[in-house]
């Protein structure tokens, strides 16, 4: 009896039937791509954010089984999850680090789309819903770390409540409506927001945020998951101290995505202005960017003002984020002196960052354009399709080695759990995920190699195209300086030059050529190089 994976058994038939049935659903409108080779994750950071959202949903649902959103039990129930529930530590750490990863991914995703100009060409709705989704993501993460009800959570809740209260006219009503009154209400309501209201709002927004073309890259998804677990193993999240209103809290700072806001609050300037108006202005300017950006081109190099604004926002985010963390280590000073940031100094730095960022952007664009021009001068390197070129046999060997490594890791993860080394086992599970990502990539690489057409025979077919023959014999191309006007962009000029070259070579093809046709490929390559040189010389003349 021959065992083969290609046989059509009933399971395969069932799956085919189910897949055909999906044809009637909305999912067919989405074009899912499973890349057959490595592609840059920058293009599908949004998908990765969504995958992390799903991870958060699963781990969060599991945590709901044990967490109690009650004033005097919230912290203890988290401690119970962390210390006594089997694998509770793992689930909690994955949930926590995934929340950080999701915020980070969302920010990276946004800035990549920003600098690559993808919010244009009728993608404005995607951009606007994306910005709202980003705000909700941060609110979701914020409510999450508040419902532990540790000291830090209490400080965060008090700041959130007082900021809401500081909104003119409607503030107090809004606080009463959203937060209720008293810690009992705060914890319970933040829980309701965290596990249901915000996620359902996010899911709804995702319906109008997803583009129709989606990339699901299995190795990258597994690598991100592994990285989250690995981080959880190395930096397990702490419990913090249980909140007690009679005990002075230590110095705590919020999570990293809110320290920027915290730095503004620490200037002790008016709460509404620093805590609501400034971030509101920031979010608003992000929302309107697609309608302000009137450049016709996409690349950041061709949109200097928009790029400069983006760089400024990045610089301010980085500086305020760090500043929010920084607390004067001098313990002889009073707590207040250590915490309060001088508003004049702070706002001067914020203002100074604007010209600095604009100058930096100007310099970067100059450098990038120079590099572009220089790259055109250099002859293009041959090949460069893939970085690694394993022989087939080595693919098998690496695969088997990784499989053995997986077995070893599984055993060590199991023993780590047996010995109560929770964070070590989480670390190892993270490595297992990363190794899986590597295995999948190698499998994909091998499969692509097997599918690839056999290498072209060195002897070309006899019915060769007339273009590549004997450019040497051709009459020289017309000099660009004399005839052509310099208004057309160099790319077009190169194309027109190529046309001219092909014409000349066609005329040359009628004349008998002596060169062996095997050489023709390399010669045509030379010809393109010549053309490129031409266009770059034109660039320099410009």
């Amino acid at each position, binding site marked *: 009896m021959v065992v083969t994976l290609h046989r059509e058994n009933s399971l395969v038939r069932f799956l085919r039937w189910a897949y055909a049935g999906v044809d009637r659903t909305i999912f067919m409108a989405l074009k899912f791509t499973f890349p057959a080779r490595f592609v840059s994750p920058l293009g599908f950071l949004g998908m990765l954010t969504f995958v992390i959202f799903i991870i958060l949903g699963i781990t969060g649902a599991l945590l709901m089984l044990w967490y109690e959103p*009650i*004033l*005097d039990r919230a912290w203890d129930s988290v401690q119970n999850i962390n210390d006594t529930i089997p694998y509770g530590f793992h689930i909690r750490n994955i949930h926590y680090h995934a929340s950080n990863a999701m915020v980070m991914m969302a920010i990276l995703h946004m800035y990549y789309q920003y600098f690559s100009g993808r919010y244009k060409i009728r993608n404005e709705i995607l951009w606007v819903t994306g910005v709202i989704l980003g705000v909700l993501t941060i609110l979701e993460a914020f409510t999450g770390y508040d419902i532990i009800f540790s000291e830090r959570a*209490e*400080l965060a809740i*008090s*700041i959130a*409540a*007082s900021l809401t*209260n*500081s909104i003119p006219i409607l503030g*107090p*009503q809004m*606080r*009463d*409506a*959203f937060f*209720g*009154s*008293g*810690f*009992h*209400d705060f914890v319970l309501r933040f829980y309701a927001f965290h596990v249901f209201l915000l996620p359902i709002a996010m899911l709804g927004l995702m319906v109008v945020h997803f583009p129709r073309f989606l990339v699901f890259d299995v190795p990258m998804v597994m690598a991100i998951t592994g990285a989250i677990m690995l981080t959880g193993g190395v930096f397990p999240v702490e419990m913090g101290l249980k909140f007690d*209103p*009679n*005990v*002075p*809290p230590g110095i705590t700072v919020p999570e990293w995505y809110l320290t920027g806001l915290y730095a503004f609050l620490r200037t*002790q300037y*008016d*709460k509404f202005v620093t805590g609501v108006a400034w971030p509101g202005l920031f979010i608003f300017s992000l929302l309107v960017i697609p309608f302000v950006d009137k450049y016709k081109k996409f690349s950041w190099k061709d949109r200097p003002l928009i790029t400069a604004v983006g760089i400024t926002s990045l610089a301010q985010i980085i500086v305020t984020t760090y500043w929010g963390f920084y607390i004067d280590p001098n313990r002889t000073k*009073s*707590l*207040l002196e250590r915490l309060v940031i001088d508003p004049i100094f702070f706002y001067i730095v914020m203002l100074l960052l604007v010209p600095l960022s604009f100058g930096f952007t100007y310099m970067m664009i100059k450098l990038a354009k120079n590099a572009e021009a220089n790259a055109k001068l250099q002859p293009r390197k041959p090949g460069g399709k893939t970085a690694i070129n394993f022989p087939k046999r080595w693919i098998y060997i690496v695969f088997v080695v990784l499989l053995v490594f997986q077995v070893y890791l599984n055993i060590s993860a199991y023993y780590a759990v047996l010995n109560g080394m929770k964070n070590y086992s989480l670390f190892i599970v993270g490595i297992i995920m990363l190794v899986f990502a590597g295995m999948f990539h190698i499998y994909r690489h091998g499969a692509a190699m097997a599918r690839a057409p056999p290498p072209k025979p060195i002897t070309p077919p006899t019915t060769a195209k007339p273009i590549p023959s004997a450019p040497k014999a051709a009459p020289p191309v017309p000099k660009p300086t004399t005839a052509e006007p310099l208004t057309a962009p160099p790319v077009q000029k190169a194309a027109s030059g190529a046309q001219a070259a092909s014409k000349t070579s066609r005329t040359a093809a009628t004349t008998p050529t002596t060169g062996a046709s095997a050489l023709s490929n390399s010669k045509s390559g030379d010809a393109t190089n010549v053309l490129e040189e031409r266009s770059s010389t034109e660039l320099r003349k410009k």
Partner: protein
Amino acid sequence: MTQQAPPGSGGKVSRRDFLKLMAAAGTVMTFTPFVDWGKFLPNPAGNISERAKVELPNGSQANVKTFQVNHSEAIIYPRADDPSLNTEAFRTWQFIRLPEELGGNKNDASAFRVYSMVCLHLWCLWKYWPEEGRKRGECPCHGSMYDPLTGMAFAGPASLQSPPSNVLPVLDLEVDNDGNIWIKPPNWSVNGNGIVGFGRYIT
């Protein structure tokens, strides 16, 4: 094709527009009652229409004849049936009889103050210190200090906050013929008794 001239609009509304107007009005009327349903959101525990006893930790009602001058107790208001809710900071108030020099000798409501114990800075619980030279409310966390006469922060981070976040919420008191002290129904707004954890404007 000739365009039809618009009908002479002598203040007349076309039948179609009238229908649209009616439909819009109907939609508004349909959803109007739900505006009031917004009251579902705030916690109604603060809506108190009757006066309440000032209940001291030993269970007795505070009385002007027995309560010492320059002395304070933590009281719970409003008192809930659930004991764990009564431990909450937001229901904890400082009941103070002012020192002599601030008029604490009088046997009427003016000798007493009730302030929310939730510090306006970051919600620790402050308390009144009756010692000579202090006689003020102090927060153990970041050192905010409160004037017992008005509830206004005069030192520490809470004093740097802009109004209304520098004055403690207060409860109004009344004394009956037996000298028992009662808390009058509060008005939880920044212009009334204040908002716990946020403050009030001094009137």
